[in-house]
């Protein structure tokens, strides 16, 4: 039976067939990615509502009002999320889920019941690993703190508190729905319920923020925090109030060099306090405390996004799409062999650049359209793009290098068994290595501490290297 989600994908497939001609058919027939890759994944659940609008936030979010057309009943929203999740898991090869992340929006506004339903759905289709990480993003308000226990009972085992600043005027400037005092209480409470599993989100680079003020704040943070911190540089995103304020000249962010200084100072301050920068913006005391879910993103794992505006990266079951095709028997689940029977030198290039093997899916952003899609097709997918191995490798380089682990030879190998990391990057990145920005060994390619600060400057070169080398 074709699931509803697959109906939709099948439609996309036929549309592509029309556009690209027969060749598209070939391009869909094999994913041939390793079993170990396609069988594992994580789940992201996007809660689309917030209590109020933060001035810097451009995420998909809605402020519910009674009678506003985008406000859905909890029950309705939860059920649709479950439905979408079930369909998505079924149309993928995922059999093991390693993490679930409830983000938003403000998912702590949801009923703890949602967690239960989602976890039941996951467990109904897949196995959840024993040490699976189930994270909830929480706004540090008293109303939400009281729900933490129930969230824990429902399955949450890690929380990420969006405290953003330990400075009331900043919180006001950001239009946050809590005070510093409330945040501090929430942290205390959360640490009791999720000891060692509490993360704090902070924003630096705020208007008129000086080195001293920020260091003082970080000191305070260090006194109250658990073992995980995320420090985000304030960025001005289109469509936000902050953007309008900056454009109108009412607000000025610190100069580039000040931003850099604030960041560098944070990194070294936290380093001295035992926190390792395991990703550009993420710091953990001990590797146990690192966020598994996010690490899976950066490792290029599969993830299924559920809810309005959520993104997915997932290998879809082709054989359900092309059941009747004789090519079925070509399908292999073998880890090592690439069963294409093509002997030419160019075979792997075709695999890299022509054969689609993973889908990048974006869900409809507004809750009502999303809900409608889910009702009609079983999925809220609005935009489906199929990715070749080359696309996947590009993404892996761009996200993997953000971590201290870097791009590993093992993962690289799983997508590109034909050329090693060293083979591809060594020569073309000598200048970056000489500048002490990049390290390459048989096991990995990593940005150095220095390189991590300017990663986005380096990435375009690396992307071009990948493309040139793999098309050679």
């Amino acid at each position, binding site marked *: 039976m074709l699931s509803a989600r697959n109906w939709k994908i099948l439609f996309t497939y036929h549309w592509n067939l029309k556009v690209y001609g027969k060749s598209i058919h070939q391009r869909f027939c094999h994913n041939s990615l390793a079993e170990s890759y396609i069988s594992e994944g994580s789940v992201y659940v996007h809660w689309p509502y917030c209590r109020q609008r933060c001035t810097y936030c451009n995420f998909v979010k809605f402020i519910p009002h009674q009678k506003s057309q985008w406000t859905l009943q909890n029950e309705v929203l939860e059920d649709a999320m479950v439905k979408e999740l079930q369909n998505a898991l079924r149309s993928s090869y995922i059999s093991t889920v390693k993490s679930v992340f409830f983000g938003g929006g403000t998912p702590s506004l949801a009923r703890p019941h949602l967690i239960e339903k989602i976890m039941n759905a996951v467990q109904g289709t897949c196995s959840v690993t024993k040490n699976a990480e189930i994270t909830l993003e929480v706004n540090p308000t008293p109303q939400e703190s009281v729900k933490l226990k129930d969230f824990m009972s429902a399955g949450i085992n890690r929380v990420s508190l969006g405290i953003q600043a330990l400075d009331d005027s900043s919180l006001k400037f950001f239009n946050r729905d809590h005070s510093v005092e409330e945040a501090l209480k929430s942290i205390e409470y959360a640490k009791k319920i999720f000891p060692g599993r509490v993360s704090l989100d902070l924003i630096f680079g705020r208007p008129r923020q000086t080195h001293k003020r920020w260091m003082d704040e970080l000191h305070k943070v260090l006194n109250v925090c658990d073992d995980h911190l995320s420090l*985000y540089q304030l960025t001005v995103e289109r469509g936000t109030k902050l953007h309008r304020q900056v454009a109108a000249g009412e607000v000025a962010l610190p100069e*580039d060099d000040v931003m850099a200084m604030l960041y560098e100072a944070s990194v070294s301050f936290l380093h001295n306090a035992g926190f390792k920068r395991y990703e550009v913006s993420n710091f953990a005391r001990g590797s146990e405390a690192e966020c598994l879910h996010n690490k899976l*993103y950066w490792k290029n794992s599969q993830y299924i996004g559920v809810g309005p505006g959520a993104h997915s*990266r997932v290998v879809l079951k082709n054989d359900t799409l092309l059941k009747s095709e004789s090519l079925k028997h070509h399908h292999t689940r073998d880890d090592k062999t690439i069963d294409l029977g093509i002997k030419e030198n160019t075979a792997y290039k075709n695999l890299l650049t022509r054969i689609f093997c993973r889908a990048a899916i*974006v869900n409809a952003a507004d809750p009502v359209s999303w809900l409608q899609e889910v009702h009609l097709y079983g999925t809220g997918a609005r935009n489906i793009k199929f990715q070749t191995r080359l696309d996947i490798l590009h993404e892996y380089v761009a996200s993997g290098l*953000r971590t201290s682990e870097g791009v590993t030879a093992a993962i690289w190998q799983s997508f590109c068994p034909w050329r090693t990391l060293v083979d591809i990057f060594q020569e073309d990145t000598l200048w970056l290595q000489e500048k002490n920005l990049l390290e390459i060994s048989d096991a990995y390619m990593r940005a150095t501490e220095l390189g991590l600060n300017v990663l986005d400057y380096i990435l375009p070169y690396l*992307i071009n290297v990948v493309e040139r080398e793999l098309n050679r």
Partner: protein
Amino acid sequence: MSYSLRLSSRVFRKSFRFALQTCTCQQQHGLHTSRTQKNKEPEPEVNGFDMKSFPVDSIRNFSIIAHVDHGKSTLADRLLEFTGAIKKDADNKQVLDKLQVERERGITVKAQTASVTYKYKGQTYLLNLIDTPGHVDFSYEVSRSLAACDGVILLVDANEGVQAQTVANFYLAFTNELPILPVLNKIDLKNADPEAVKEQLLNLFEIDPDEVLMISAKKGIGIEKVITGVIESIPSPAKKCNPDAPLRALLFDSWFDRYKGAVCLILVVDGTLRKGDTVASAHTGKTYDIRDLGILTPQERSVQQLFAGQVGYFTANIRSAKEAQVGDTFHRKGIPCEPLEGFRQAKPMVFAGMYPMDQSEHPALRAAIDRLTLNDSSVSINIESSAALGQGWRLGFLGLLHMDVFNQRLEQEHGAQVVVTTPSVPYKVRIHGEKALREYGEEEPTITNPIQWPDPQVIVETSEPVVMGTVITPDSYLGAIISLCQDRRGIQHNLRNLDQNRIIVQYKLPLNEIVVDFYDNLKSVSSGYATFDYEDIGFEPSSLVKLDILLNGNMIDELSTIVHSSRARVVGKQICEKLSNTLPRHLFQIAIQAAVRGRVLARTNIKAVRKDVLAKCYGGDISRKMKLLKRQAEGKKRMKMYGNIEVPREAFINILKR
């Protein structure tokens, strides 16, 4: 530059009218000719145009000189109407309507001629109105047109008075020793102040106020006075013509027709020109058979022969505009004659590089430039290849207006975006040393591109083109205009009151100081009231240097410019600042330097990138990030490396474009 918009479109719309009157008729006539040729019938003489019946003394060759918008073409229309050459109203409008069409087809802006007859005191006169391009960019062409005339009508708007262009054109006529018939136009308008304008004419040109005719071309007032004035005060060409000598004809204008080849406008100075004659160019020595011969009434009308003193056109299957050069003399094959004086090849005075915005548009741009230059032999073309901008051309123009018109048409007709580099002028460099002489092949090479600039060690002397600029302005702006001219290394030549509140001031200015934004600045400091014109007065020695731009010590050839030594520091600073605003930051600091002969005159730094990494990159962010990354990666491919510095094309365009 607003210069192009204001002047060019106006001047050329006007000039087009005449061009059109001929061009549209050419086609009709072309059909007619081919039919008669097929039937091999002798072509009948046109009624009333038995050319023999116009002896030299019944001929008047004249032109109208005027500032833009002073009513030149309206007066021309009236003269044609009055003499019955064209019908009133309806026809004129038609002419205008067709103009748009013709304009889109890309007919070159050219002066045109119309021949009319007029009976006065019992004698029929043949009046040849020879139009001139309105601007002294085309001063050479104007002077050739004037060489075919024996007098001019100086037409001045009674409201606006004498303008800079009027002055320049007046002096051209004056130096050609042509009698001048002064006419004030638009006297019917409320603000007309004929007495004040007469005073200007007296002050400036010593024109007797009693001799000035007062007309309104629009209303048709005073047209007859103009015609009789032409007959009475402008001499016939008898003095310079000899009907009995061997053929000698002055080519004073030409344009290119796709089917007939070059169409040449000529004045028969000596002898007779007949259809079927074989003529030779004194300049190229090439010979041609006259295919068609005729006069413009303003329609083309074939005639069998043209006699001394008469003006007309011929076609002779001349396949290139370059072979029909204005100022050339034609004579009968085998009977050489003394060429008429004044011929010189068009010398470009303003150069600019033109590059397609996107290299894939190169062939299309080439086709467009070819098409435009086919008609305009005065544009010089050299292929130029810039490491920064790719393959392109270096075009030379007669002047600023000429360039602007060309660019405008290129843009309109070509459609795609064209990168036009900052205009530059030719320089002369006297060099010494055996090796240098061998390399340049002459003692004083003309340098049009900074890349060709000789090594400073072999330079003896440098000189640059200088112009005499004329500004006419209300006196309240004089201070600002004087300081503008002084900033541009101008030397005051002359300053006089034109009337009670207007002043004429003349400055000797280096051409390269006015090629970029002088006109715009002049307009802005004078609230748009000042008018400006200039004429070339040759090269003058000047202390010129090559200003080099260096990035961390690597010279960027494409950004070198030739400047006067006194301006090197200022220009250098400007370029450095512009570059520091457009060059992306690198992982290391970049020093931008402007230097002359290795001596650094200006410097700016671009700090190294210290932090450049996206704060958040989770599930949903990755798609966005990848999109941006792909674009950046594409951009990197197109960057030009200087040492280890990447320079995006935009940075070059930003510096090099006008």
